């Protein structure tokens, strides 16, 4: 397990560094003086000068890349072009909103999807199973932002049950929760479908295995065998999918944050793009990549923990 952990850590670190380097290259591919490109039309000569100095723009490209990576490693992602705040402060300030949204979305999906999938597997080919199967695909193919738009239209605009936009007033948990309901629902809908389907298939697969047959032949309650023995094995692939799907989820949160006008990473990046505030865009992307990489790493590690075969790829 230690060797596996180390190997996964190294590959993750390597891909993250390469992803950062790719970001650097993309920004350099834009024609023109990198300082002007990054700082945009508002830059004063003084700002450009200090940027050139900080990023060592007069040095060869490899040196620049080294400095850029070193700065990121130290948590220094430059300054906001508009209000001169450190980008790291901005990004980490909004990150909790995105994390809360994403984690609640996945949490809700697991809470609904797992029982749905297990019950379907236990009642294979019943009406319930068929309806769930159809709904699962319908849910999976409904993009979160479409779900968000429809929820907003129905529950906020038409019925007025939930607030239309914002993240809720700070220090008021009730208001924050009310602002969270629709975005979380929108985000969870496709995942409910995914998870229900995945759990159903894996439970069915698990039911054919020896340990389940043994449990049955011992005369254990079939319900117990289904929900305890088979479901446990079936949850392993679910962990992997949830981890790997986190990137999609992060993409989904961007659109959800825009629709519900919620502070968060996606909202920050998109606004920064509109004002051509590239240091903020870059910082936001760096944190998104890190976030994504860590989620993947955790998924892989927990996968390796429950299923030793994974460790020896």
């Amino acid at each position: 397990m230690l060797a596996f952990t180390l190997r996964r850590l190294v590959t993750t670190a390597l891909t993250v560094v390469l992803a950062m380097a790719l970001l650097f290259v993309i920004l350099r591919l834009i024609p023109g003086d990198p300082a002007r490109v990054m700082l945009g039309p508002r830059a004063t000569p003084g700002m450009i000068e200090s940027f050139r100095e900080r990023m060592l723009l007069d040095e060869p490209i490899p040196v620049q890349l080294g400095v850029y990576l070193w700065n990121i490693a130290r948590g220094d992602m430059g300054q906001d072009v508009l209000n001169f705040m450190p980008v790291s402060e901005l990004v980490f300030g909004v990150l909790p909103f995105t994390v809360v949204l994403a984690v609640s979305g996945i949490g809700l999906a697991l809470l609904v999807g797992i029982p749905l999938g297990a019950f379907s597997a236990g009642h294979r080919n019943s009406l319930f199973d068929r309806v769930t199967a159809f709904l699962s695909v319908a849910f999976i193919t409904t993009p979160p932002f479409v779900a968000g738009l429809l929820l907003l239209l129905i529950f906020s605009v038409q019925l007025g049950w939930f607030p239309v936009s914002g993240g809720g007033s700070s220090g008021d948990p009730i208001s924050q929760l009310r602002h969270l309901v629709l975005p979380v629902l929108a985000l969870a809908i496709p995942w409910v479908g995914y998870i229900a389907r995945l759990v159903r298939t894996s439970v069915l697969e698990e039911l054919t295995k020896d340990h389940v047959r043994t449990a049955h032949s011992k005369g254990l309650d079939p319900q117990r065998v289904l929900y305890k023995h088979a479901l446990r094995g079936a949850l392993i692939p679910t962990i992997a999918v949830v981890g790997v799907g986190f990137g999609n989820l992060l993409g989904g949160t961007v659109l959800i944050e825009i629709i519900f006008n919620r502070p968060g990473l996606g909202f920050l990046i998109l606004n920064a793009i509109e004002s051509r505030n590239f240091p903020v865009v870059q910082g936001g992307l760096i944190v998104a990549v890190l976030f994504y990489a860590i989620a993947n790493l955790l998924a892989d590690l927990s996968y390796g923990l429950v299923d030793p075969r994974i460790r020896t790829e």
Partner: protein
Amino acid sequence: MTTETTASAPTRGFWARMRRTSLGRAFADATGLFGLACVTLIVMLAIFAPWITPYTPDGIDVANRLAGPSSEHLMGTDQLGRDLFSRLLFGARIALMVAVPATLVAALVGSLFGLIAGYFGGVADHAIVLFFDVIRSFPSLLLAIALIALTGPSLVMLVTIIAITSMPSYGRLIRAQTIKAREEEYVTASRALGARPPRIMTVHLLPNVVAPLFIQAAMDIPVVITFEAGLSFLGLGVPPPTPSWGSILREGYSYVRLSPWPIVFGSGFLVVATLGFTFFAESLRDAFDVRLKNEDAG
């Protein structure tokens, strides 16, 4: 879900014969048929859009802004009085014009990389897999947003970016298949006869690894349609006034308090398309019994 029909099916007649082919089996069940119907409908609507719609998608009718459905405007109008039905039909064209080329390019380039990685192994393999991992380490929508923000939105840019972000899944698929196929006797035989790697890869390996590729491509089309709609919703997709489903939803969102119809019909089209393509692709997959697990074989 689909394969069980064969056992009890009658043995004569056209439909019975159809049911014994893989393709026939794919559409013998309700969901497969539903998927096929949706896909046909969307493709037909996209092709014949100008002949079906009574209005041009950009025709402005100021007297009828944000109107509800009526006999005059089947699905109502948008904030400029443009006919929503016409715009949504032309939107189907845009959706396919982005999704089909992007998927084709991604599948082509991805499988080329996958073939090379799987066939040669070693350094080339490691480099290509690492390259795929780097692309995949970006949340694809965020990467696309950043790239388009830098280059400006356009149809070509959109197709390129979608192709780049979805390429790794094809690459990994073909790589895994190639690793399996490369040890087969026909490859060894061909090598012994003096065939060079490009010939082995294109003439011998590719045809044998291509079936899962088609299924994967079919599965990917609805994903790409959604992706394009999402970007257009953010104003980073197809530039206006081109009627993309995403930009129709974007405008609907801006005027959500005044009229629900752009969102209602816009998401309706989008969901029917993605649902249809997904059912279609899944029935194909089940019928051909292709396993699409992208796990690495090496």
